[in-house]
């Protein structure tokens, strides 16, 4: 038991260490910018970097993962392919992230809306995959690879200045920002990057904990 306790402790401390270490003081840098964009970014900076946010997100993520596991076990007798499972997990993680964003950002709303749309479409008209544009969206349907239609044709042909074109590409990467204006895309990208960073950190720590748990020898 003592070993068990000792085994259990390090993972948690690791998690907390990770969480604490990730916290950066971004307020100072953000505070320098006095504009509203700056204020928004500083607020989002503090938001996504805080321990509290990471904890909240981790909690939601774990819940979602458990749900996924429940669903997958209930739905299929034979384990689904690893890729499908991975996709399901990824979508669950993205959804959890979007929920953590509290609906203030475009991309979070788009992620959540996608899911609802997908469910809706599944019920109404079982269509095959729609036309697939050249880029893949971040959120994919679990059963069908639905790709968001984002027009990319024009971008390569038109003589758009490089910066604009790249911003458009960035907009396609960020969910929900395919057809937004440049400043909006940039703003969404800042928040999205921060959220992604937090997501990566949380998932990393989660994987670490889980794998460390698995590797711990059972107390006998």
């Amino acid at each position: 038991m003592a070993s068990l306790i000792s085994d259990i402790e390090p993972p948690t401390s690791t998690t907390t260490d990770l969480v604490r270490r990730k916290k950066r003081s971004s307020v100072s840098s953000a505070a320098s910018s006095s504009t509203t964009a700056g204020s928004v970014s500083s607020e989002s900076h503090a938001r996504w970097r805080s321990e509290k946010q990471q904890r909240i997100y981790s909690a939601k993520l774990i819940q979602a993962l458990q749900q996924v596991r429940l669903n997958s076990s209930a739905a299929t007798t034979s384990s689904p392919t690893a890729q499908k499972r991975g996709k399901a997990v990824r979508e669950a993680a993205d959804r959890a992230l979007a929920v953590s964003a509290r609906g203030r950002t475009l991309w979070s709303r788009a992620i959540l809306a996608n899911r609802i749309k997908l469910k809706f479409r599944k019920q109404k008209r079982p269509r095959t995959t729609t036309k697939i544009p050249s880029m893949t969206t971040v959120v994919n349907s679990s059963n069908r690879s639905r790709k968001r239609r984002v027009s990319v044709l024009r971008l390569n042909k038109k003589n758009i200045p490089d910066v604009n074109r790249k911003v458009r590409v960035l907009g396609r990467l960020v969910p929900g920002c395919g057809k937004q204006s440049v400043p909006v895309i940039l703003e969404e990208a800042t928040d999205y990057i921060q959220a992604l960073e937090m997501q990566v950190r949380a998932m990393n720590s989660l994987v670490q904990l889980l794998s460390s748990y698995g590797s711990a020898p059972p107390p006998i």
Partner: protein
Amino acid sequence: MDNELFMNTEFPPPPEMATHFEPPPSSSSAMMLNWALMDPNPPQDSSFLWEKSTEQQQQQSIFDSALSSLVSSPTPSNSNFSGGGGDGFLIRELIGKLGNIGNNNNNSGEIYGTPMSRSASCYATPMSSPPPPTNTNSQMMMNRTTPLTEFSADPGFAERAARFSCFGSRSFNGRTNTNLPINNGNNIINNSGKLTRVSSTPALKALISPEVAPGGEFSRKRKSVPKGKSKENPISTASPSPSFSKTAEKKEEWGGKGSKSSEEKGGKRRREEEDEDEGEGEGEGNKNNNTKPPEPPKDYIHVRARRGQATDSHSLAERVRREKIGERMKLLQDLVPGCNKVTGKALMLDEIINYVQSLQRQVEFLSMKLSSVNDTRLDFNVDALVSKDVMIPSSNNRLPEEGLQSKSSSHHHQQQQLQQLNIYNNDNAQLLSNNMMLQSPMNSLETSTLARGFTHLPTLTQFTDSISQYQMFSEEDLQSLVGMGVALNPNNESQHMKIEL
């Protein structure tokens, strides 16, 4: 004369404007918020606008004469107004007041601060002493009203002007509907070294219109990002949005009809006024002149042309837009590692795109890893993952053993199953295949660590009989948990669980 040119460009005949501005954009409502005091109904503004414009134009002739007198007066370098006469003083005072009001922080102290101080010193007599700068629009309004009453030839004009100033968002094309009583102000503006930002408060406008207000350029061009120093030329501020260019075009149309230069100046003044009044601009735009409270309604942002730079509406709008984008790029640069070394937007964007892609790939990879870990590890210590506190109840250590040993399907045993227990039962093929998640609320009661938001524990499948039963529990509890939110309070959770059971 430049003034005339500007005026021509800015003010199309009112009837034409009316057609343009009939449908106020919904965003105008945002602007209206700023002018809540004045008028909360955007649609009415356009109509008001037109009324005002007609009135103003009628009064323009009056203003011209007044302006000339104002222009003659010498102006200090800093002052926005070169008005020398009493009117000039009044106007300067107004502008100063407006400037201060618009500025929450003294960003453009040069622009606003000096006139204010000067006005305070100079204009004690003609008008009531300028009230202390206030950030609230209401106060500004009130401050203005005093001078306005003196000036305004039309009592309702101020209100209309106020409404008028509350144009919608940038997308509102009708913005450039400027009241041109201030056309004459262009002269004054031209003389001043800097472009004075005349607040667009209705009071001010009303003040200006009858007065001649040198600063009363009512170019309704609202721009994002009031920036730059005043310029010699009265400029229609270019809005950062494309619609703004539209307004600029319209302004030009107007210019043909009315006196151009003065109108432009007036428009610019007005824009500035509006900026000052609102104290808020769109998004990040208002760094320079206005420091708005961090809740900018979708409103016009007034831009001031920088010294020595182009002053036409298009370039101003461009500049505003560029600055906004530049601002955001800077934020992104801080965010993305490795962007500091890169100079230039294109390269930075490349870095950013690569970074986002790498993050997404990382997430994908981690999700695959998690899914595999999920499958192999039935259970994980949720509490340990989430909670900061290292709570390792000793009972947990014992329970797994008990659970392993007791094969009864009793509820009690199941409740005693803990996450750690499950982990050590991976050998059990049944466990792996079933991969069920049973909720064990009672466990949370017994173990504080479990009393978190995650009561879905993939428990052993030893008790297949009761599995379905517990599945139901788990789902219910899950939903309840979700409803409650992710609560990390063990006590609440446990209590809740208890009740449900």
